């Protein structure tokens, strides 16, 4: 490190030292005038890899993919003004999805702030609502301490993005370095241990429950692999059915006995009916999102609810619960299991067996079935064939864009372990998947990383193909090409009288040529019979691939709980009767998104 004689170093050098001390090995970024001193320091060292993305939004999603797949915070470095504003979407995305992320932005020198200087933006002002916290550092002596605080805030409590705005003169000036040990935040100390009397109360409810269900979410993944392990033990010890949100897939294995599949708007019939009819709901690290609850006053009307969450503001936000437990999933489950076992691990076995019988009748509906075809590739079929190939290959990570393809990926691709599934759930950011795949592949160079995409979403951040090629990241973009903004088109079909206002993609590029133009491989497939071979070719290729899978254009994604409806008002693909659909979706739901 470039220590000066008097024990000080420049702000720019301090940034690198602080990142190194925080264990950072990868930074996703894009240079510009206001961060040149930091880029100069990056140039002089080789502990931290810098990944040059092609758009700052790409850097933020790549950092999210890196973070979700490793459990470590993602780090982003961008310049002032447009660099910072381009990163806003990714910060809001990380905020909604509880992804730890540290964003460093350059700023115009302190003496020019407020003068409409070149590439000046009020970055701290713009990003205040889309970060957990942000700082403008005006003094080099405070810089390293602030960076350490930022890592602490990003990774503790409900994780999320933080931003540090560093004026250029602060990067050039000398200051004293503070080590992570000496940087503690006085005010911010999230609680990790749950209240034991409340855990005890929860255990009583578990012992007595007759129709229980575990409703788990992203918080289990946030809590780390140990939490997933404990969850599996608790599910095994109780024999209760378990469902998960989109964000929590993989915490409990899809092949597990008690697995009901994902719940919510496009979740399984059995999971949603179990939620609706249960007498005990055990919510673990999920936040009662509106994709889950549907109509609030009809949400699981007869259940007692236990809610484990590290963030007190997630509790009683949308749904009143009976036993709130503030704490980290891993810590709380450890206590819960201990208390449960110490009382002989007893449940009402006879009632639970009857409950499973009811659930089996819902399962028999086979809600994810669809009418397949020999002539045209059904998108569900394509995802199933992909899933099959992934399972055969093993060691896979999946990212997605946003739309119907995202839901089909969630429905048909099985995850056996946490941190293997990255998707933009809360914000629903089209263009997330490819840069996220870049981030995942950076962290797991040997694994198979697939972005399940829609053609419209892919076009939003397709420039990151260039990043993939430059860093030899063999990511596979599996496009379900319906030449439509499929999810929008589906809503227009069901809610807006089939008036397809601007929901089709015209003038699409030739994706095979596009792949080749980037220096990758392009594969197109249009016949169901050719799929397996084409997918095998994609997986075998040692480099980035764009797979253009031409699918049925007007397929709808089912099951579906229309917005503002209750769980038991779910539409299935077999509900082809337009009148039934029209009745299920009355105009009062149309105001909701």
């Amino acid at each position, binding site marked *: 490190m470039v220590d000066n004689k008097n024990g000080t170093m420049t702000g720019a050098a301090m940034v690198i030292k602080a990142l190194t001390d925080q264990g950072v090995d990868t930074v996703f970024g894009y240079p510009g005038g206001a961060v040149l001193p930091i880029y100069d320091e990056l140039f002089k060292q080789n502990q931290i890899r810098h990944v040059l993305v092609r758009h700052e939004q790409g850097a933020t999603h790549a950092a999210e993919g890196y973070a979700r797949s490793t459990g470590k915070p993602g780090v982003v470095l961008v310049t002032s003004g447009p660099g910072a504003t381009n990163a806003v979407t990714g910060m809001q995305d990380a905020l909604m999805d509880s992804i730890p992320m540290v964003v460093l932005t350059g700023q115009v020198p302190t003496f020019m702030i407020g003068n409409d200087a070149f590439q000046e933006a009020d970055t*701290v*002002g713009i990003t*205040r*609502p889309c970060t*957990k*916290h942000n700082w*403008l550092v005006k003094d080099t002596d405070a810089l390293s301490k602030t960076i350490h605080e930022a890592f602490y*805030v990003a990774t503790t*409590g*409900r994780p999320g993005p933080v931003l540090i705005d560093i004026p250029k003169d602060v990067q050039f000036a000398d200051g004293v370095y503070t080590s992570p040990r000496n940087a503690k*935040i*006085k*005010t*911010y100390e*999230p609680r990790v241990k749950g209240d034991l009397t409340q855990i005890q109360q929860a255990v009583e409810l578990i012992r007595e429950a007759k129709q229980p269900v575990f409703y788990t979410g992203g918080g289990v993944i946030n809590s780390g692999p140990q939490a997933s392990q404990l969850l599996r033990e608790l599910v095994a010890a109780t024999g209760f059915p378990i469902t998960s949100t989109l964000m929590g897939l993989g915490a409990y294995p899809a092949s597990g006995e008690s697995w009901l599949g994902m719940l919510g708007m496009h979740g399984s019939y059995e999971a949603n009916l179990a939620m609706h009819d249960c007498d005990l709901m055990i919510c673990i690290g999920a936040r009662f999102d509106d994709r889950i609850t549907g109509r609030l006053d009809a949400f699981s009307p007869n259940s007692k609810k236990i809610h484990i969450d590290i*963030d*007190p*503001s997630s*509790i*009683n*936000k949308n749904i*009143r619960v009976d036993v709130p437990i503030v704490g980290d999933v891993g810590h709380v489950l450890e206590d819960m299991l201990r208390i449960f076992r110490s009382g002989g691990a007893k449940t009402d076995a006879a009632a639970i067996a009857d409950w499973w019988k009811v659930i089996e009748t819902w399962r028999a509906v086979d809600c994810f079935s669809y009418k397949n075809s020999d002539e045209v590739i059904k998108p569900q079929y394509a995802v199933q064939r992909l899933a099959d190939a992934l399972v055969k290959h093993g060691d896979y990570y999946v990212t997605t864009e946003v739309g119907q393809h995202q839901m089909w990926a969630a429905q048909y691709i099985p995850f056996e372990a946490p941190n293997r599934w990255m998707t933009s759930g809360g914000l629903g950011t089209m263009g997330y998947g490819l840069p996220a795949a870049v981030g995942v592949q950076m962290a797991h160079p040997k694994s198979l990383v697939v972005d399940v995409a829609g053609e419209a979403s892919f076009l939003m951040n397709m420039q990151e193909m260039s990043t993939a090629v430059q860093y030899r990241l063999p990511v596979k973009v599996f496009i379900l090409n319906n030449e439509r903004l499929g999810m929008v088109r589906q809503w227009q079909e069901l809610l807006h009288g089939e008036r397809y206002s601007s929901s089709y993609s015209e003038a699409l590029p030739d994706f095979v040529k596009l792949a080749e133009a980037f220096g990758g491989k392009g594969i197109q497939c249009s016949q169901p019979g050719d799929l397996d071979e084409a997918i095998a070719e994609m997986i075998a290729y040692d480099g980035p691939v764009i797979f253009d899978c031409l699918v049925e254009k007007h397929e709808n994604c089912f099951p579906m709980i229309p917005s503002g409806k209750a769980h038991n008002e779910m539409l299935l693909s077999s509900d082809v009767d337009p009148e039934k659909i029209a009745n299920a979706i009355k105009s009062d739901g149309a105001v909701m998104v």
Partner: protein
Amino acid sequence: MDLKRGSSSQSAYNLRSALPEGEERRTLSVLVDNESGVLARVIGLFSGRGYNIESLTVAETDHTGHLSRITVVATGTPMVIEQIKAQLERMVPVHRVRDLTVESPSVQRELALVKVANTGEQRVESLRLKDAFRAQVVDASLKSFVFELTGDPEKIDAFVDLLRPLGLVDVSRTGVAAISRGPDGM
């Protein structure tokens, strides 16, 4: 009289609108690091999440400790108030949040400067009211007074309302400052 907790309906001269069914008025005291942007954060939380603020005051209260105290009067259903507290508590520069309406008995004070322009009998009447409310005259001309009045918000509402027909020109209010009764600190 059957009064809702936190409601100001005990004032006959209520300037504040009656609260919608199920909503309550709460005074929150928030101890924060006095760093730049902290007020913007708190205000941004309220505007961003659509919470209602009736009054907000802030000033540094501990110079060496770099602490400020923000007093917020907010309205909402109990569930929303609980959210407001939880959202405030998770903010990094926030040390502590106290609900002074329910957690302990408290005193609330507000200061108002009230200008009237009048002559003759109206002028005499406004001075009588000043005395009745124990306000001070802090500026006077032959045609006007500025009164200073300290009290709980209802008292100020009442004073302002009475002066309205007597040539009221301007009112400037500080918003509520509040503190718990008894020996315990925050």
